[in-house]
């Protein structure tokens, strides 16, 4: 007699199925979506905010908004796209609100041991957590100096390597507007880096 093998039951529900369940009243299913997406959302939020409490606040807002707007998700595009668009827009809103209280000034960010020129020529290896942390600080300090729109575009285009079309879909801007913003963002970033270098030379 041949032993009957039971195939492993795949009870992994798709995002769309989970959304349907949540909208249908099974609120506890939302937790599965949160668990699925929270690492990505935290990774994304940390590109825009350096302060951990700001990161947690914005991630919490993203998931709360997602829950509240879940009813408006029509399922025409993958949930992931809809969710990432909402996440980026929430980060953009949070950046605009935070604009009134900048966290660091240029003078806070002058390293004692190395100068900026040296630091810019040194890519962190990834093995040294301190080195990585300093590189993160440097990136945040420069990006804090550019406008919110520029920061969004720089992060999406230059750091995440997204195309113009993708950025347009995420932000809801037209492709030509994204191109213009990308050009301005690059200019702003160049000016910010130069300002740091100039400041260092003066000291």
């Amino acid at each position, binding site marked *: 007699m041949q032993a009957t093998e039971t195939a492993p039951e795949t009870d992994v529900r798709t995002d769309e199925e989970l959304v349907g369940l949540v909208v249908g009243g099974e*609120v*506890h299913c*939302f*937790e599965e979506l*949160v*668990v699925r997406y*929270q*690492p*990505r959302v*935290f*990774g994304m939020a*940390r*590109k825009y905010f350096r302060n951990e409490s700001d990161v*947690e606040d914005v*991630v*919490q807002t993203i*998931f*709360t908004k997602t*829950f*509240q707007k879940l009813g408006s998700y029509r399922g025409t595009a993958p949930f992931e796209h809809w969710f990432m668009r909402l996440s980026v827009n929430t980060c953009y809103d949070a950046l605009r609100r935070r604009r009134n209280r900048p966290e660091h000034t240029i003078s806070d960010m002058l390293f004692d041991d190395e100068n900026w*020129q040296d630091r*810019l*020529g*040194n*890519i*962190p290896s*990834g093995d040294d957590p301190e080195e*990585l942390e300093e*590189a*993160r600080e*440097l*990136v945040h300090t*420069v*990006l804090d100096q550019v406008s919110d729109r520029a920061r969004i575009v720089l992060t999406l285009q*230059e*750091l995440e*390597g997204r195309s113009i079309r993708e950025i347009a879909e995420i932000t809801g801007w037209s492709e030509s507007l994204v191109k213009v913003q990308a050009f301005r963002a*690059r200019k702003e*970033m*160049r000016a910010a*880096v*130069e300002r740091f*270098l100039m400041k260092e030379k003066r000291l």
Partner: protein
Amino acid sequence: MKANKTEQKFLKLAKTVQSDERVPGGFAARVMAQVQEQHALETGSADEQFLRIARNLPDNERVPYAFEKRIMARLRELLTPDPLTHWSRMLWRAAAPCLGVMMLAMLFSAGEPAETSANLPVDQSEATDFESVMLASFDDLELTW
């Protein structure tokens, strides 16, 4: 020193073996990427160097402990009806109809012929009424005296 027969055979065989010139797939691209990165680092402008650093930063996807529980607790709080919020929402909703009723009443009263003091006898005019009300206590005093 002369090679013996075995050595000569081996050398002959070794010469016939062709050198292995195979290249691993994508090797050239890998090398070029490294060269370009190094070149950009040495010759690139400050903003390019900055972007290179930013791109090389690994994503920090660490999630605080039981964060999903926190989110779910917050959502449950949102779902629990708060009587004060409900009351204020109802008040706001009622504001527009009330305003509408007020406007209608205003229009209705504006359309009605107003009773002016000219149509009334002099002793019944508003001014007289007002004066009599205000001086009522003094009238009473006079009577008492």
